[in-house]
């Protein structure tokens, strides 16, 4: 007959092992962040969102993520945001990814904005955990003030792997768009106090 103390100890060890396995199986999220030493985001009233750069293998990734970002920025309701059609007038698709401070200054004058948001979609792919989709998304966002063409805010986030509930129970998988929306929301919150 096993003593009660041994049973209790075995139970504790089993719980710890299960917790460890669950944590090890969690999806990972890494985030880096930068805010300029002299940044005063409160001085920015009007912004534009430029087309995002696409470094992933998914053709429409940059457009998808840029539109998700646009909606989340509108919902934040802290800036006046120029409508995309006006931005298309000032920015050529070939310029994306190679813009200089002079380009940002020009765009700022043409659109009458204090700053522009840009972004890069580095990864945008879907893996599978069993039959449940697990997103692999890496985004980088920047806010550039147009007076001098200086980056005043920048954030990068990478998300990969399945969540704990997906690993344990095979449910709750996220689509790529849902994962991107969550990441963008958490990144935009870093703009606020």
């Amino acid at each position, binding site marked *: 007959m096993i003593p009660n103390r041994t049973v209790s100890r075995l139970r504790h060890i089993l719980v710890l092992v299960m917790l460890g396995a669950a944590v090890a199986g969690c999806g990972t999220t890494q985030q880096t962040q930068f805010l300029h030493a002299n940044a005063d985001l409160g001085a*920015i009233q009007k912004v534009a969102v430029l087309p995002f750069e696409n470094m992933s293998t998914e053709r429409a990734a940059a457009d998808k993520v840029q539109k998700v970002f646009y*909606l989340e920025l*509108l919902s934040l309701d802290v*800036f006046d945001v120029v*409508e995309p059609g006006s931005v298309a007038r000032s920015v050529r698709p070939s310029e994306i990814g190679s813009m200089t401070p002079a380009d940002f200054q020009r765009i700022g004058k043409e659109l009458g904005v204090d700053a522009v948001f840009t972004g890069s979609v580095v990864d945008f792919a879907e893996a599978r955990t069993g039959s449940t989709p697990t997103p692999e998304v890496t985004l980088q966002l920047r806010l550039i003030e147009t007076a001098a063409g200086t980056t005043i805010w920048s954030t990068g986030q990478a998300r990969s792997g399945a969540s704990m509930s997906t690993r344990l129970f095979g449910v709750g998988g996220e689509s790529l768009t849902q994962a991107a929306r969550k990441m963008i929301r958490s990144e935009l919150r870093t703009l606020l*106090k």
Partner: protein
Amino acid sequence: MTRNTLLAAVALLLLAIPAAATMTADDIQPEGEPRVIVMPFENLTGSPEAVALVRDSFVSALQAKGWMIADVARTDLMLEESRVRYFDSLDESVRTRMTTVLASRGVISGVIYKYTAGRNPVVGLAARMTRADGTLAWAEVGALTAQDTERMLGFGRDADLPVLTRRVVGQMLDSFPKPDRSRARVKGAPRTFFMRSAASYRSPSLDPERPHLICVLPFENYSTHPDAARIVADVLAVKFAQSKGFDVVDAAKLRAAAVKARIGTFRFVTSDDLTRLAPAVGTSYFVRGTIFDFEDPDGRQGGDPEIQVELSIVDVDQSRVVLSAQHARKGRDYEGLLLLGAVTNTVSLTDRVMGEIVEAGLRPAPAGQAAVTAKGGRRVPERHSELRSRKGENQ
């Protein structure tokens, strides 16, 4: 006839002329003869027989509801004489002439999106009735697959395309106005519990108390389905038209305005083009959108349709977005208890998704979004004061 009688008759005639000049087509038509024109529908399928079958189904179903139908042969002759190219919507002058000559209250037109045979036949279409004065009296989207008609244990399955077509038309006409001008009872869209709604933003500047006239432009299409842009824009226009918050510019009016503004294609249309177009269509609110995914099972048994879209309503006069929404769904998302309720075709899925987007767009902006402060005469959202600043830290 005596001289007095003749004078009285002339006097009555003189009094009647001004009254007659203010009559509308509705007044001319006697109350006892409710009549509509049924046009041949525009056909996006590869099946030419679909047009006649859909038209006959509408004619039969409307007659069963007590409506009279303008003579079909005469209707076709007038369409040919007017050199009508697009049957989804009539030019104002053609519509006015036809409703007057054929003594009809309105014109029923539409588009056939799906008419596919196979292991799981599917019929999908949209229709609308436009009154003589150009206002919309009714609009509806309908679609069915053979799988949708199955009851318990697979009994009752209708795999015959003509039968499916009649069922689709019958369902669509449930909400059609009655000949006595009273409204039909409309069944609301099925509730979606425990499902995330469309992500949306509505500007506080979009007044929720009055309807807004909007113009729906063709969507950008990243999917591989060639008709996705047409189906999504059409169905969205129907859902906006059905809602209380929006009126939609007629497709024929948009086409005429585009020709006048020398806009050949909407694919690369800019905000400047839309600013030029706005006076001709009567509104500065344009709906632009993108289709990222549009998967069509296309008659395959057990296939799962899928759609992902985003759209914005842009006020080109103010250069700002007043409403934005994004949504994605698969047919199986609507599956409920006992694995029932899944949507099995793209037209029905598009109908549900667009309905959810419009519903989300009709919700007024949350209280936080409406709060603004005046800062030096400039509108500044209250949350603007929450933005971070490092200036104080470095002093």
